[in-house]
């Protein structure tokens, strides 16, 4: 069995705001082994980014409350001091963000920013750090890195900036790379390149990856295990196979139905999930997806536990509906009901 790097147990994150307490994450658990890619999907406001940032301690603040455990190689990162956390950030856990346009400091050269990360954790001189930065830029596919290392971020394209971010995140050879919607702000062709790059570098650097996205199409290429989040909860969890071929939550169907696919007959229109994600201050009773779920019935007024309800042992979901009923009805949502017509 591969080395277990990260174990998150019943993580809860709350923020006190003027409008009330925001339950951003309400109990999420997962494990991550070396060499694996965990995908976390969900709409905006489902708590996936807060989860990712909490792993790095980036959500800490006077208004934030945490419960549960984030065990990195046995150390609870929720408990370590801000100062100790600095040794983990960048060094053990690297992170890349959604918007490469704003995530790099506009006033420093790309190379300086990568070297800064290296020198934060290793005692090396500037010249060594710079040549490491050039090497990293080469590894993430920046052409002519000897010259580009002295460019400012505004001289890089969006895709190149994200590559530079990845180079920076990997500069200290972290065990875990957390990618928070790294492809969302990029063109489709660049998206695929970035996903390939992360996938390849994960092996080169021998790391595990937490890959967060709202796009199941992106996650299909890279993830081993997938967590579907809704309203701060895990609503379905399973292997890539489970989620794509035997999805159990109507919410997951909606997400699957909203991506265009070339391997299925074309639907008239892509599926849209009606309504809006609930306010995290005032959550609905029972199943949190109930108000938007076309299949909801009386029992949904109680919230189902995250349990195994199907044959595959690692496949968990939060849905009361009968498994066979779901299997007969889900294609309407996923493919727009055109399966029969084809």
């Amino acid at each position, binding site marked *: 069995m591969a080395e277990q790097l990260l174990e998150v147990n019943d993580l809860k994150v709350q923020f006190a705001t003027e409008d009330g307490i925001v339950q951003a994450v309400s109990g999420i658990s997962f494990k991550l082994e070396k060499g694996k890619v965990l995908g976390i999907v969900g709409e905006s406001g489902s708590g996936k980014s807060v989860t990712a940032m909490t792993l790095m301690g*980036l959500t800490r603040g006077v208004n934030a409350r945490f419960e549960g455990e984030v065990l990195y190689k046995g150390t609870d990162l929720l408990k370590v001091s801000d100062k100790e956390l600095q040794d983990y950030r*960048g060094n053990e856990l690297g992170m890349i963000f959604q918007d490469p346009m704003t995530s790099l*400091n506009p*006033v420093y050269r790309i190379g300086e920013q990568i070297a*800064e990360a290296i020198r934060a954790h290793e005692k090396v001189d500037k010249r060594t750090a710079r040549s490491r930065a050039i090497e990293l830029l080469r590894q993430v596919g920046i052409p002519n890195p000897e010259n580009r290392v002295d460019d400012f971020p505004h001289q890089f394209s969006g895709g190149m900036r994200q590559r530079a971010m990845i180079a*920076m995140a990997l500069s200290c050879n972290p065990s875990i790379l957390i990618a928070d919607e790294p492809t969302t702000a990029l063109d489709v062709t660049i998206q695929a390149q970035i996903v390939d790059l992360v996938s390849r570098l994960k092996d080169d650097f021998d790391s595990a990856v937490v890959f967060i996205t709202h796009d199941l199409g992106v996650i299909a290429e890279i993830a081993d295990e997938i967590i579907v989040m809704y309203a701060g909860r895990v609503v379905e969890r399973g292997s890539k196979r489970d989620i794509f071929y035997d999805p159990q939550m109507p919410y997951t169907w909606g997400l699957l139905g909203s991506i265009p696919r070339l391997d299925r007959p074309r639907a008239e229109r892509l599926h849209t999930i009606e309504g809006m994600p609930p306010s995290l201050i005032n959550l609905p009773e029972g199943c949190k997806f109930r108000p938007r779920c076309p299949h909801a019935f009386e029992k949904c007024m109680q919230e189902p536990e995250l349990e195994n309800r199907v044959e595959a042992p690692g496949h968990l979901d939060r849905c009361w509906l009968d498994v066979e009923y779901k299997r007969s009805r889900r294609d309407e949502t996923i493919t727009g009901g055109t399966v029969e017509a084809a």
Partner: protein
Amino acid sequence: MVAFIIRRIFGMLLVLLAVSFIVYVIFIVIPGGNPAIRIAGRTATQANIKSIEIKLGLNHHGFLGVLQQWFDMVKALFTGTLVSYSNQTNVVQQIKEGIPATFSLAIGAGIIWLGFGILVGTISAVTAGKASDRLITAGALIGISLPVAWLGLLLLYFVGGIGGIFSWFPSGGYVPLTQNPVQWFYHLILPWFTLAILFIGFYGRVLRSNILDTINEDFVRTAKAKGLTTNRILVKHTLRASLIPIVTLFGLDFAAVLGGGAIITETVYNIQGVGWYAAQSIQTQDLPPLMGVTLFGAMFIVVFSLIVDIAYAYLDPRIRLT
């Protein structure tokens, strides 16, 4: 870069010419603006006034006449031959004599207000919402609201010996640096702080809000995610970005004070600098010195705005000088 600077210098000359013309026009259209009438006194005859006008070169009339008189005055100023109406002293000479005092006041006060402004703004932002932030905010608002003349008089009264309470500091005056550096410093402490206090409050407030905006920038989050220390994030990433707008403020404020803008402070503390000279000339409605002082000040403003633009391009590589 060179082309940019040359173009800007041409622009600056045009601005200075325009400023001098506006000052001139304002002066002759205000009531009692004709210096000849004032100099001639109450019982003057038309002939007296006429002869004074001729002597001062004010005997041209109509638009072209005014233009001619303005041009003569600017020419006299730049050739160093312009003299005051009231006491015939050379304007350029008088300004030159005021420069050491004015520069001493401005440079010292500038260092104090920039240093304390940054310190106060940073502490306030880092401890936002806590007691120290509230205290600084209250202090800054008081500092901004204090009239300089009143503050100066109050300090002179209570600690400058005038009220007979404490004589910790001299009651005004200026001692040249070359004559006695210790006395120079001692005499300037009160004026420096009097002049600086408004700017400290203002800069502190501006910097506080800049820092609080910058803290939420994505690149600051990236810096955190890299595992940098809190101090390094604050200084290298947050403060660096937050100080850029302060550069503009400081450039123009400092230029104004260097150019004789600290009229009230210089007058209250009897520092005979350029601002003090301006105050004297206003009292006697003496146009030539005012023209000289205004152009002196305007020159600093335009030069420093050029310096600010160049500094901007250095501080933010996205900005191109064109």
